[in-house]
């Protein structure tokens, strides 16, 4: 029998977590590690490893084929370009304390697409080979240019077999025309709601009356557009976060079931105002938030989730779960999604756009007028996978984890740091450690939440294999 290489990590109480390169995992102990390392496996060890897909008898047998298929599924292969983030204007009618997009005032000039830019954007969209497209309108406040949004949407509807649109709006000033635009079946709303009115006022509107307007707009969106068409993301300041319970209750009251917590992203204005974020503070808060969710779900009829936690949990169990552009491996940039700025410049991610805008580093990858800068993309993509990285290659979480070259560049200006010194790695080590802790927690409330987050009726204990 051949055992695939196993990585392992100490998870306390004489327990070790083992994981193979296809993402098959189990818990065992030092005694097993000893036998594994010294190649003196018992009959029971062998049976366990074979049934779990961690070994094979001979090349091409069912164990071997299954492992190869699961390994291959874990590698992200980008499809054709079919997801485009558009910034038709950089102008915004709010000036949130930590604005993540380096906005300009609502009456500024020269920060909108002109006719030539619009035409070049449409030409680029027209040249795509995919039959479907997803367009995300960002800003600035995209609703300030409803005219541009309509023209893009009309064009895409005609051009593609299926088209979907997301408008990322602050829902502060929504005209009746805008409501009508948002009501279309193919159009979705994404907004920011920092959890409760007080925090939202402090961090965003600076004016309780404005917050009240926003909240009534959000409620209108939920009731008239439908809960399935609206998502809201809270931005959390780890130095002064709202109580997890308050956020959960606030979202639940509105009928929002998914909460995507984001730490303040220190960019643009925010970077000038705040210091470097404290990862530990964030991790601790995040932990408390997950605890609060589990407690809430224990009794709630409609369970709530933290979006990214759910995503990473699903990546552990599902080899082909690549639906999030921030978390995949390899994370090829400039392939299946793209950002187009207000001046027609192309960026691999929104983060790259911000870095470039604040003058930290030019991460643009071409423009709608001249096309993609392949040379630059190649440099960025040379380090887009974690399989062979010396730190990740020893990490038990590697099959589930990803890479974020842009985040490394933005924080450290380089990508050759030891992984363990990066915020990306620290955040994900903490996250995966926590998820595995939950997977191996034999407690009804935890299992109920895990089931809800995995989208299954019940969490079966067989999903958390243990070998003694």
């Amino acid at each position, binding site marked *: 029998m051949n055992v695939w290489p196993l990585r392992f990590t100490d998870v306390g109480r004489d327990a070790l977590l083992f994981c193979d390169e296809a993402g*098959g995992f189990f818990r065992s102990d030092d005694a097993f590690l000893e036998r594994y390392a010294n190649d003196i496996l018992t009959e029971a060890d062998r049976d366990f490893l074979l*049934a*779990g*897909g961690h070994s094979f008898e001979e090349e*091409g*047998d*069912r*164990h071997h*084929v*299954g492992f190869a*298929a*699961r390994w291959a*599924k874990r590698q992200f292969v980008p499809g054709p370009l079919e997801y485009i983030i558009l910034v038709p204007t950089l102008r915004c009618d709010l000036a949130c304390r930590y604005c993540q997009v380096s906005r300009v005032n609502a009456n500024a000039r020269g920060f909108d697409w002109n006719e030539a830019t619009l035409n070049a954007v449409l030409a680029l969209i027209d040249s795509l080979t995919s039959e479907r497209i997803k367009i995300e309108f960002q800003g600035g406040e995209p609703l300030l240019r409803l005219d541009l949004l309509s023209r893009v949407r009309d064009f895409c509807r005609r051009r593609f077999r299926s088209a979907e649109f997301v408008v990322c709006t602050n829902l502060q000033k929504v005209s009746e025309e805008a409501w009508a635009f948002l009501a279309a079946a193919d159009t979705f709303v994404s907004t920011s709601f920092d959890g409760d009115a007080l925090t939202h006022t402090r961090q965003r509107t600076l004016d309780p009356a404005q917050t009240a307007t926003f909240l009534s707009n959000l409620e209108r969106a939920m009731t008239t557009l439908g809960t399935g068409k609206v998502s809201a993301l809270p931005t959390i300041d780890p130095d002064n976060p709202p109580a997890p319970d308050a956020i959960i209750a606030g979202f639940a009251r509105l009928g929002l079931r998914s909460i995507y917590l984001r730490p303040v992203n220190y960019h643009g204005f925010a970077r000038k105002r705040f210091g470097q974020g404290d990862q530990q503070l964030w991790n601790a808060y995040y932990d408390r938030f997950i605890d609060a969710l589990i407690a809430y779900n224990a009794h709630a009829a409609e369970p709530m989730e933290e979006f990214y936690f759910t995503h990473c949990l699903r990546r552990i*169990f*599902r*080899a*082909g*779960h690549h639906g999030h552009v921030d978390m995949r491996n390899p994370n090829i940039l400039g392939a299946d999604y793209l950002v187009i700025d207000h001046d027609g410049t192309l960026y691999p991610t929104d983060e790259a756009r911000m870095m470039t805008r604040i003058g930290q580093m030019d991460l643009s990858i071409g423009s709608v007028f001249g096309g993609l800068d392949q040379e630059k993309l190649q440099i960025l993509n040379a380090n887009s996978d974690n399989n062979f990285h010396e730190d990740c290659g020893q990490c038990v979480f590697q099959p589930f984890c990803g890479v974020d070259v842009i985040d490394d560049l933005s924080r450290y200006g380089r990508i050759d740091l030891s992984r363990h010194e990066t915020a990306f790695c620290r955040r994900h080590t903490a996250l995966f450690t926590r998820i595995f802790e939950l997977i191996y927690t034999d407690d009804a409330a935890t299992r109920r939440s895990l*089931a809800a987050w*995995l*989208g*299954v*009726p*019940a*969490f*079966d204990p*067989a*999903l958390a294999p243990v070998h003694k």
Partner: protein
Amino acid sequence: MIPLRFRAELPPIEEPLVVRLRDRPTDDFHDDREAALIGIAEGWREYDFNGFSLRIEAEPGQSLDGDVVLAFPGRPIVHRLIRARSHHNTFLVTERCDQLCLMCSQPPKQVHLDLFAQFGQAALLAPVGATIGISGGEPLLFKEQIFALIGNTLSVRPDLRFHVLTNAQHFDSEDGPFLHGRARDRVLWGIPLYAPDAADHDAIVVKDGAFARLFQSVATLAKAGAQIELRTVVTRRNAALLPRLARLIATELPFCTSWALMQLEPIGFGRMNWDTLFHDNSVDFGPVARALNIALARDIDVALYNFPLCTIPEEYRTYAPSTISDWKQKYLETCQGCSLKTRCGGFFEWYDPDRGFARVGLE
């Protein structure tokens, strides 16, 4: 029950006849393959087939427009090979089989009537975008003919799909080119797998080495990127093994397209062995639930086939589509006024309530 055969008066034929019935001639009407309705009298419909009369006895409500029927010389019957308004059209291509599954709904017979030419003609006359089922017996005992049937049909009718039920005992690496070609995206191979180990699976299908041979076939299919539907009939013989089977599928067959857990059909051996085989999930849903939870969590697309909705707990009902073919489906008296009836498949025509589920009907 929807009739699959009608009494008929045939034109003088020497060979088996395949013909599509039309209520009125269409623009692209084919004289040599289609017959147009010219009159109805006293339950009999009269069709004009190339100048000859074809008469079929059918109830007034039945639509036969677009149906493809098969008739044999000297026998006053037509068989409905394809019903234009149904999603359940299956060609039973042979009754021979090299397994002898304990619950087989179509117990094998040695005789084989070769109708591949007729099936080929019928397939070409199927409605646009239709899926044609191919079943047996074991169709791939006639692998060459089946591959030819599928290949020829798809080359003329790329809009069609096939769903082939096979015991996966007959695929070899030479089949790669066929599987990888036009067939890849158009054929779903439905393969029965009953247990997570050779001893149990082989005992259920009554064939030594079947389990090992199945995996060999599946490796060939997987390599070609073929679409695979695994099918597991739930019985008392394998119910307890289902959680392990779920794990095996997620681990060793992660490339399969879907997995169907199927309630027993009380016909053929299934009827004969009903009392020893029937697993009453209205009393014990546990192992089915576990299998479903394990497989779903690991991204296997699982569905429960032929499970009346009221016999399974509420939170599992979304996984139980209505699957019993229209022509052999029935509802019980309890079903009258049931709020789930529109999305419930009900029961097999030959289901006997006295020997069936202990609990039926919504509380």
